[in-house]
């Protein structure tokens, strides 16, 4: 489905707004966006995809984490106008078209890896991005410096914790989140 959206009531002029086309969860959208609009607000307000959460709006909490071209980003720190042609996956897009949960979503549910749930979409998206980074051999602060580059990094608990530390959880579900991530490590 292709949507033509103008943010309600925005005074769209070429000086302050531009057309952007991007794919979100596999669907193309063309929107006229206020140049100040972040990807997070585009998802939440223009596309009614509230899965990405606004916890701080300043890149400090990770609740807004989505995947941009497969890499995790804080969507509150990206201006939508700069993302023409980009491919975005949000928590709503993880389980595909079916009713089945993504294995990591299932693991979060089974492990009780959340309480209030507000950080959860960000934790899940961040963990998926993190798994891809580790598979691609990206080192973290706790990776053995002697480990060979470009080989997958083995994710033990210190690695998982270090790599997910940009995603805050005030309910303190961290131990369960780590277990849920371990459940889906290939």
């Amino acid at each position, binding site marked *: 489905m292709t949507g033509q959206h103008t943010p309600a009531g925005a005074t769209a002029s070429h000086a302050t707004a531009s057309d952007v086309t991007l794919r979100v969860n596999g669907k193309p959208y063309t929107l006229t966006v206020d140049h100040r609009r972040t990807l997070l607000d585009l998802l939440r*307000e223009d596309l009614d995809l*509230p899965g990405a959460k606004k916890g701080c*709006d300043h890149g*400090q909490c990770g609740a807004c984490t989505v995947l941009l071209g497969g890499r995790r980003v804080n969507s509150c720190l990206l201006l939508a106008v700069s993302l023409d042609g980009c491919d975005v996956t949000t928590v*709503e897009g993880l389980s595909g078209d079916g009713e089945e949960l993504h294995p990591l979503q299932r693991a979060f*549910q089974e492990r009780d890896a959340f309480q209030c749930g507000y950080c959860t979409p960000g934790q899940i998206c961040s963990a998926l991005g993190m798994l891809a980074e580790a598979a691609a051999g990206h080192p973290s602060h706790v990776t053995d410096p002697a480990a060979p580059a470009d080989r997958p990094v083995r994710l033990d*608990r210190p690695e998982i914790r270090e790599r997910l*530390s940009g995603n805050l959880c005030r*309910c303190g579900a*961290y131990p369960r989140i780590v277990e849920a991530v371990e459940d889906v490590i290939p």
Partner: protein
Amino acid sequence: MADTTTAPPSAPERREGPLKVTGSARYAAEHPSPGRLFARPVPATVARGRVTGVDVRAALETPGVVTVLTHENAPRLGEGDDPTLAVLQDDRVPHRGWFVALVVAETPEAARAGAAAVRVDCAEEPHDVILIPGHPSAYVPEEANAGHPGLRRHGDPDRALTSAAVAVDVRYRVPPLHNHPMEPHASSAHWDGERLTVHTSSQGTTVVRAVLAGLFGLPRERISVLAEHVGGGFGSKGTPRPDVVLATMASVVTRRPVTVVLPRRFLPQVVGHRAPTLHRVRLGAGRDGRLTGLVHEVATHTSRVKEFVEQAAVPSRVMYAAPNSLTVHRVVPLDVPTPSWMRAPGEAPGMYALESAMDELAGALGMDPVELRIVNEPRTEPDSGRPFSSRHLVDCLREGARRFGWDGRDPRPRSRAEGPLLIGTGVAAATYPVLVQPSTAVAHALPDGTFLVEINATDIGTGARTVLAGIAADALGVPPERVRAEVGRSDLPPASLAGGSSGTASWGWAVHEACVGLAGRLSGHAGPLPAEGLTARSDTRGKADAESPYARHAFGAVFAEVAVDTVTGEIRVRRLLGVYAAGRILNARTARSQFTGGLTMGLGMALTEGSTVDAAFGDFAERDLAAYHVPVHADVPDIEAHWIEEDDPHLNPMGSKGIGEIGIVGTPAALGNAVHHATGVRFRELPLTPDRVLRGLTEAGAH
């Protein structure tokens, strides 16, 4: 009898979980409606004074701005009990960050630009924002939070301390702390004719509805307040906060739907905080360790808007047998933001001080800190003389010691090193009172063989839906899958708020009663059910709030192991283990998360979380999540939470005690005591950040 259980994964899973992991659970700001506006408050930038003029011309010329509300044009509110909600009603600025205008706009971006364009002129007045010991304005309040007397005295504590064989006289400081739930405070209000619907992030919408009815002069029947999913609260959403008043106000003026989301950096100034507490604890004991005197003096601040007194000396009235005691609060009204509830108000800072002092006393006596607590176990509640309905603190200490491997610990401080790391272990006790409020519920038996329970409980992440369905299923004698629990709407039967660890007891009691009544009706009913099913109602007024002849509290013991880096001053938690005695645990899966979450917040209170009132500007220096450090993944080890099943017939039909707050209690002291054991240095001011630790090690010559 007292049997230890670890959390089995067999307890029912969180019912709203699939919605939360897929992003389809909608929170307060996530209910769009056509024509919705976004409003952004403008905070005052003086610490005290009066607004002399608000120039809104530039804001109104900002594209997308619809209107700007100030004290000059905002609707007048009715009388309310909470003066922190009297926003935009007069020119007074009682503290920095107080809202002085509200910009209402078509988009969040326009609201932000409009707010930046509002020019507020203030006549500044001298301000006083710093809590110091012996502040001349300090007074002993009649009551501290939760109705506790400001002062209690037994015997002659001064004399007991003077003549004690062993005594400690120590001072501790707990800084202001911020709740910072992950979902900022947010509310959306819209009108449907004469009917007001509000989505708000709140711990209890029955109260929100009553407050809005009073402030806006509306009959309650014309207001619906919904909080189906709430992104945490930890006390800061216990009662309505300014966001819901502002959203409603703006929707009254514009007659359009309005959403107010408070920016993260605004929260510390307007949603309440844990007030700083200065503690002086004096303990006197005989050589056998038995306390002869206990004095716990607390100084704290409140705002000039209203009195809130963190009841931090109260746990010292519960914990230990001391024939002579004084527990007193002194509060200083300052030009600061108004403090309020934060997870375990009173117990969290109070038990940090008391349990640290007990550790210091154990050191002075040369006694094991677990044994010191055991010899001071009281037979009745020390302050009231009432018998405990159940008290298994000793069992928690012994069970915790066994699981942690406490026996065989070398008690000498600084006895274990690994290169530059000093390793230590510590213990502290925990307590939290049993609170319960009257509530109402309705239970339906439906013709299809399922059941529906309705109650305006709020699930702020506690698992209320799941637990209440389980309580209903138990009372009805059916599998939980056949019971649906509807919560989180003020149109449901009125119920108490999710606070004071009272939710499950209060709501569960009403649900249990309704279901017992329904089961009775079903047993007397022959043949198929009528199309509308069968219904039973409950109201626990007069029962849930009846005075108990028993002192009712949950207890626990926390054990911690830390590694202190003598080069960087960094403290790493290696192990953290809590054992709790909190009545019957109703859902092991969600209960474990409650305990673990509390322990994690206690870890933050001990090591990372601290806020500072800025003497010049009058508000908090650490306002956002970059400056105020809540624990992150890398700070938190594999925390263990265990419990001892208690069979206590003096609580409620489920036999449960509250578990939402006790996890934070005792944890800071256990960690602080472990740091002392590791380093030989006693730190008495939280949080134990590397700068403090390094300075302490250097000053002690222990570097």
